[in-house]
């Protein structure tokens, strides 16, 4: 099993979660080191988004979550954010009735006024296309622009770990590259990224390590420089080494 050489930032062990009666995750173990990009891959319905929600506290969970040396197993999303664990949820859920600028400001709610103003500008600088529309209400943005706005919100607090849930969904290829490039810049600045992504090729190009999730369990863990990774992933996806083979 490949072990990250870096100092661990997020450590998850024995994590289970679900929606009401429906259990989705089963005893997940996962680690993200400081300043690395980890891709979380897997077929639709495998539980990737659920895993992020369970880590950030948006869903009730059992198991252990340690972040930056702190036990975060039972904390609220707000505690997570304050500790530097920021989760950009899937589906570009920005506040459509507020302006772009207000949306970004809210991401720093509770910060000192002057500091916040600087952080907002800094975050907006990542996506000039969004910054241009700072005084437009978010409802006027396209789906892709809303997604960029959501990522912008995630940058305001200078998180230690940014969890991005399908940031490429609904984006044209050019914009996908722009968003993922932002993730790379963050890594260079020392921020770790946990990335849920459907575009495997792009994810593998960007990430340092990869986990594959299928049917609520981790079925593969690897560093991205290992050979034959796409093939192994496909096997893990279709569960050939887990259940019945394809007809």
């Amino acid at each position, binding site marked *: 099993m490949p072990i990250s050489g870096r100092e661990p930032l997020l450590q998850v062990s024995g994590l289970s979660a679900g929606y009401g009666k429906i259990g989705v995750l089963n005893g997940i173990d996962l680690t993200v080191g400081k300043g690395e990009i980890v891709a979380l891959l897997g077929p*639709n319905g495998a539980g990737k988004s659920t895993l992020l929600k369970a880590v950030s506290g948006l869903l009730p969970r059992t198991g252990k979550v340690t972040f930056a040396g702190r036990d975060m197993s039972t904390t609220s999303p707000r505690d997570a954010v304050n500790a530097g664990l920021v989760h950009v949820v899937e589906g570009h859920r920005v506040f459509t009735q507020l302006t772009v600028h207000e949306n970004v400001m809210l991401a720093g709610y509770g910060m000192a006024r002057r500091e916040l103003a600087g952080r907002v500008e800094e975050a907006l600088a990542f996506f000039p296309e969004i910054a241009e529309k700072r005084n437009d209400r978010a409802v006027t943005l*396209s789906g892709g622009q809303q997604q960029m706005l959501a990522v912008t919100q995630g940058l305001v607090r200078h998180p230690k770990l940014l969890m991005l849930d399908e940031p490429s*969904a*609904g984006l044209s290829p050019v914009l996908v590259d722009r968003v993922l490039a932002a993730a790379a810049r963050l890594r260079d600045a020392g921020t770790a990224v946990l990335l849920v992504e459907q575009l495997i*090729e792009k994810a593998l190009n960007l990430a340092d390590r990869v986990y594959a999730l299928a049917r609520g369990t981790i079925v593969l863990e690897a560093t991205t420089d290992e050979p034959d990774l796409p093939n192994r992933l*496909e096997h893990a996806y279709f569960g050939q080494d887990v259940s*019945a083979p394809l007809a």
Partner: protein
Amino acid sequence: MTDTAAPISQPKAPAGWLGRLEGSAWWIVLGLAGLLLPLLEDSYIGVIAQRAYIYWVLSAGLNLVVGYAGQIAIGWVSMLTLGAYTTAALAAGRVGPEWHPFLALAAGGVMGAVAGVVVGLPALRLRTFYFAMTTLGFSTIVTQVALAWKDVTGGGVGTPGPVFPWPFDPGWGFYYFCFFLAALATWMTANIGASRYGRALVAIRDAEVAAEASGVSKARLLILVFMLAGALGGVAGGLFASLQSYITPDAFTFEMSVLFFIAILIGGRGSILGPALATIILTALPEFAAPLVQWSTFLYATLLLVIVLVIPGGIADLLDFRNRRPLEKHREIVTRPELLARVLDRHSEKNTLSMTGIELHFGGVRAIDGLDLEVRSGEVHGLIGPNGSGKTTALNVLSGYYKPHAGEARLNGAVLPFLEAHTRADRRIARTFQTPRIVGGASVLDNVMIGGTIFGQATFSETLLSLPRHRRDEAHLREAALLALATVGLEQLAAVRADRLQHSELRFMEIARALMLRPAFLMLDEPAAGLSAEEIRRLGALIVAISRSGTGVLLIEHHADLIFDICDRVTVLNLGKKLAAGTPAEIRSHREVVSAYLGA
């Protein structure tokens, strides 16, 4: 349906002969107590009993609105007020000539029925709070009018109530009149409650979209129930006016509404005996605890708060011992596709269900962006794509929940209307849901029977009076539901409360419910999610068998192996657009599909 008698193990009847007696024992005791009460010769107790009967006449109808349909009608005392003043004013000749008291009472019922429908109108399309507010507002208005319209109501001074002639004259004669009407109200509402109408009401409450998909017309059904509940409230009002002998607006306090309401909540939603007992107890309680009278409304309100916060299911839920018995732990779903010949009509004709040029956006987000799709009889058509690619949205357009901004849907060339989901059942288009939409508190059998609602022939009034056609309906639906359950392998669980089932079992239960329609087209939304590998294999075989008997199947699924295994054709969506379409083999080798869907 053929008569090849494949053995279907009947579930142990939840209430056999003894069980039925157990169920009616309380009614027999109540009935006898009511009949024999006059022997006590205690007119004080007699008056309390009459008041309880009158309240129950109203609450029995309200129970269908609140307990069954789940509509929060908190101001139903207005029906009592309206019925009381109508009866009193007509009988006293304050409007035109004096009416005979019985005619005046009937008029009170009619007024109640009309008011019930008017007050209920917002419930047909609006959220719960609006309806609650409408009933509350109506009771405020009715009281204001009663105070202001002095010619008819006597204003604050009041007006005398009607006096019924012998044999129902004041005293024990009137007592038996009230008793009889309470018994009648009980019987009629129990008939409705145990019929397809009652099941549909509960389905509207707990699983509205599933009810619509089963062909339940919410508006029509609710209007009938509001009419019945209003009429019973109006009749209760006429009786109340007679019992009070003199009525003023003060007599109709809002606290009575609260009493009716909490009696139903305490008694338990979807029960009739429970609310009846609770009505009697709550009516009598303050009489025997004099110091409490002043505080009774406060106590009722506190009770209401406690019930809502602590036991929203009511006391009936607490006492439901039958459903505490543990179920067998390691249950296995053994489907029996061979029974399908008896479940489904043999569709030999070729049908097509199609969408062309569908576009739909939510705000600035394009959910579907020009989609064409065609499903044919006897085929399994797979619909796959990444999250958010518009699969379920497409299904919701096809089944009539959404209205697209462009494009149309057709069945055999005939245009399908949008936003009329309940009309799909008549066209034999059935579906299941990504998250099973079920009535948790009802038995599995009842849940499945909801699927056959459109095959019932008896009218609401026939059901009210339990006429033969209604009883035939019930027998047929029950038989068909057991067969459908046997087909999906759940017949052993027919009598179990649906919310005790495992998630995978609920998926099969939804399929059984959809099969009740004998569908020409069946649309399945991720039926394999949460199933074990073995269950998925059986599901696949069942779906294939369904399609081979002539039904067209549209299958949304994430399990690629299932899709490639059983589909005849596959359509791949990405970003609301068709990315590719073809046979499974073609799709597997499609480069773009592999990159969009498989991601590699």
